[in-house]
């Protein structure tokens, strides 16, 4: 068949999880080609976390859902405790909101920096070219590009420093047989066009970011005891102020929230801000200047969704009530929808318009889409047995992925950093919104003579735009960390946990909701958990997650409308069809998290979620 996929990437590496990409590139006769039709994006692993949750104690759900993903570790936990708190009508103390904001914020900063350097950079940085770099010239470039930055060792990045980086890289490269992690990349591909010195500079930051990352996640350890998978609790936070904050020895008893712990947090925040300002931001701008053509590739349909995140703790005053409006009015990232790339209008988000369908996912169930709170799910693998022989291929007319297709008002939506920046830009009411507008102008739309890259606003919807927006939101959050920390520190002696929480779980008559919903904006985008607690047993009756990477990485729907990853491949021009670097660049620009996207399973064919009509009638809303 003329259009049989000739671009196949399996496994897609430098992502979380297990992903396969298929596409057809129309050959140009010179080894290259152009992708003119949407690709096929298949998630190839499933565990069944939601099914496992049924019948369990709702207080435990956060720990299970956290393990949906060790990269997104905090956000699934927070979403879960929010869902249960919503279901039973518990408000958390202000300290808990501040701490959750800081923990989610630290995850964003940590995650986005690591994505850029450790998961995405090697799509733009040629390691073999870096080995040819002149250390002295690289030091001059560093002084110009990253003024003020000192290595983790305290060393200035001078010629000797870069010679040391080269030594390490060549030592790792060795005699060529032990390239380790850097082995067999698309090195020498014509689409790489940084200079040798630029390549070495970014690789030095790849190494520096490892040391940096270890320090910034200490914030999670202070509040949550460990990272990954820090501890949370329904009703607030389990951590609490030490009775003896001045005495930091463990022998003195107390808790991690003592003066030593606060010093760790302040230091982590300062390190976040310094690294973002001195390294991440200028490196992204350097990349944008060298690869501006990538603002012309990787666009999705232009519809964006954001649930809202980082509630302003001082504004939380809404009582739990039915329907929309259960959540705080003031979010750093607004709750809303952008249609057709409209830069000025933020439409209202209506939770009832979220649906999932399984037309091309390995489940039985509705091909046309139902609300997550009334969906049914049943595993139905119809793909190849994959015993190791040849001829493995997935077909777009069939079911081909473990990810369901979420839709909003029937449309595929892009979620994540691009959606966050566009919704803040469109809202324009908060001081941080004005900062976003200023940065977009300064660094993106301004001409090169004024320090920008001279690209159109609409071109933010692109491979490069996603990278730029991810950096921009990291900058906004890193700066906001100080505000949250100060707000928290001022009130640190106050409560951390709502003591009514566990008792309330035994009093179903007092619950305002039977279906609780928790929304967060994860680093990769809109994340929602729906929980139904059985009033009789107090156990989880049903649990359902609709996850960020599911929105972006989902397969076609019943109308054969492709998901955002699949759509973003259209128009890609490949220099070498056998080495599809351009496809990796675009897929990686979404920061795939496939463990998150796939989490549903029920081999017994029982409905995962059964919201009885009486529940819906009582709560007045299916949400």
């Amino acid at each position, binding site marked *: 068949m003329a259009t049989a996929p000739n671009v196949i990437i399996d496994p897609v*590496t430098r992502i979380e999880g297990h992903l396969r990409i298929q596409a057809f590139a129309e050959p140009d006769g010179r080894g290259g080609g152009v992708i003119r039709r949407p690709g096929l994006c298949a998630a190839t692993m499933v565990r069944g976390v939601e099914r496992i949750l049924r019948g369990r*104690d709702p207080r435990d759900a956060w720990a299970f859902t956290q393990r949906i993903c060790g990269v997104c570790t905090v956000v699934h936990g927070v979403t879960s405790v929010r869902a249960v708190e919503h279901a039973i009508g518990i408000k958390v103390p202000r300290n808990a909101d501040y701490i959750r904001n800081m923990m989610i914020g630290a995850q964003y900063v940590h995650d986005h920096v690591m994505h850029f350097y450790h998961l995405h950079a090697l799509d733009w940085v040629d390691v073999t070219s870096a080995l040819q770099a002149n250390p002295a010239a690289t030091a001059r470039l560093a002084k110009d590009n990253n003024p003020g930055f000192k290595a983790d060792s305290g060393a200035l990045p001078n010629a000797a420093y870069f010679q040391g980086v080269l030594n390490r890289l060549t030592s790792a490269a060795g005699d060529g047989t032990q390239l380790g992690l850097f082995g067999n990349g698309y090195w020498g591909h014509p689409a790489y066009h940084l200079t040798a010195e630029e390549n070495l500079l970014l690789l030095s930051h790849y190494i520096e970011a490892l040391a940096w990352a270890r320090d910034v996640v200490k914030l999670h350890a202070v509040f949550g005891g460990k990272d990954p998978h820090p501890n949370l609790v329904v009703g607030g936070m389990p951590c609490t102020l030490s009775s003896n904050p001045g005495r930091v020895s463990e022998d003195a008893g107390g808790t991690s929230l003592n003066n030593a712990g606060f010093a760790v947090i302040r230091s982590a925040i300062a390190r976040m801000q310094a690294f973002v300002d001195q390294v991440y931001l200028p490196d992204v701008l350097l990349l944008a200047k060298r690869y501006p053509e990538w603002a012309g590739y990787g666009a999705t349909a232009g519809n964006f969704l954001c649930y809202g995140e980082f509630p302003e703790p001082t504004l939380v005053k809404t009582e739990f009530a039915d329907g929309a409006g259960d959540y705080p009015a003031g979010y750093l990232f607004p709750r809303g929808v952008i249609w057709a790339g409209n830069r000025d209008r933020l439409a209202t988000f209506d939770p009832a318009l979220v649906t999932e369908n399984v037309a091309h996912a390995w489940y039985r169930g509705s091909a046309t889409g139902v609300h997550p709170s009334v969906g049914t799910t049943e595993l139905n693998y119809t793909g190849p047995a994959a015993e190791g022989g040849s001829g493995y291929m997935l077909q777009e007319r069939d079911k081909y992925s473990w990810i369901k297709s979420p839709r909003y008002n029937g449309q595929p939506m892009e979620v994540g950093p691009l959606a966050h920046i566009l919704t803040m830009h469109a809202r324009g009411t908060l001081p941080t919104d004005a900062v976003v507008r200023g940065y977009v102008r300064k660094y993106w739309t301004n001409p090169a003579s004024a320090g920008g890259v001279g690209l159109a606003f609409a071109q933010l919807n692109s491979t490069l735009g996603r990278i730029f927006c991810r950096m921009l939101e990291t900058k906004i959050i890193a700066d906001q960390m100080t505000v949250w920390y100060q707000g928290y520190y001022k009130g640190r002696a106050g409560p951390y946990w709502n003591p009514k929480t566990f008792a309330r779980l035994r009093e179903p008559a007092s619950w305002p909701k039977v279906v609780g919903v928790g929304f967060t904006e994860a680093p990769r985008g809109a994340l929602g958990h729906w929980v139904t607690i059985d009033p009789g047993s107090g156990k989880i009756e049903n649990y359902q997650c609709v996850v960020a990477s599911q929105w972006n990485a989902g397969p076609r729907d019943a109308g054969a409308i492709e998901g955002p990853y699949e759509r973003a491949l259209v128009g890609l021009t490949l220099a070498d069809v056998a080495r599809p670097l351009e496809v990796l660049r675009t897929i990686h620009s979404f920061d795939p998290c496939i463990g998150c996207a796939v989490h549903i399973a029920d081999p017994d064919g029982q409905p995962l979620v059964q919201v009885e009509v009486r529940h819906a009638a009582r709560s007045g809303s299916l949400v």
Partner: protein
Amino acid sequence: MNLRSLTSAPRSGTQLDQDVMLDDATADRLLELGISRRRFLSYCAGLASLMALPQSMVPGLAAAATARTRPSVVYLSFQECTGCLESMVNSFPFQGGGTIENLILNLVSLDFQQTLMAASGDQAEQQLRSATNRSGYVLLIDGSIPAQGNRGYFVSGEKNGVVRFREAAESARLIIAAGTCASFGGLPKADPNPTGAVSVGALLRQLGIKKDLINVPGCPPIPEVLTGVILYYLARGKPALDALNRPTMFYGRSVHEGCYREESFEDGPHARSFDDAHARAGGCLIKLGCKGPVTHSACARIGWNQGTSFPMMSGHGCIGCTEPDFWDRVNTGGTKGFYVPLGHNSSATDPINEGPEQRGRTEGTWGHGHEDDDEDDDDD
């Protein structure tokens, strides 16, 4: 020993003896890698101390960590969440001026690790084939594996989990199961195990493959434990293991034994509620469901994230994540749950040689109270 002391600069008069002799090759290699000898020895000495090894073993650890020919490690991921890798990457005890990255680049040759490797698709699969065609590599696994390959619950590189595992396991010299999912089945295996997930050990038995296996459980494992086990193996071979194939040097004692809140375990005062006065003062969390007494791990001894904290220090009980089937542990009153107490009228040990099969049946001995019986007042 807490990692805080391990990661700070060596003090005179500590066990970090400046006279530790390194052989010339190791010393040259450190120089070549730009690693401070002093800090490196401090790291090795600390590691030896954590593993309860004599300081005479420090040079051997140092030599293993800097060997010119790096042992090949193939790291394969199955039904996992990437938390184990995050843990390994995000934390490392040695703060010698960023030079630990030298170790990451130089300790082993990580020839396949799909979350970090440059190569993708066919080129990644070529890497895997060429690495597994050479014998003598260490195979590191995270995630459980669906025992029935053809049901499609795990496929990567066009091969199902069983096929992919078998091909990599056959020529490995050692298999390390990193994390609780690989060690014991973990979250995917939690009731009702929707995908038929099994541990690495169970799959080896199913396939009739006999290999050395070390389980390094934890959700995720403490990074210093994982890297310590690798380093120990390179220097000294297989460490002593308990009945669950866990290295006793790290899993020989309960979390409880190293926890400072343990002081009030027997006689109180216990924290009765999150955020109460006793929780703030460091009282035992046993009534809030802490599973520390029956959980074998070095969390409280080593600390997390370079000794910054550990779960109980930050106010939450241990959830028991290094034990088999901890997601389904049955507590007091026959109830599952992380906030259901074990009971507090029992001794603080759980016989380590009691396999997972027996575990469920013995839980009844953990007291007869119930979490709701807050009135059984004996601690205030």
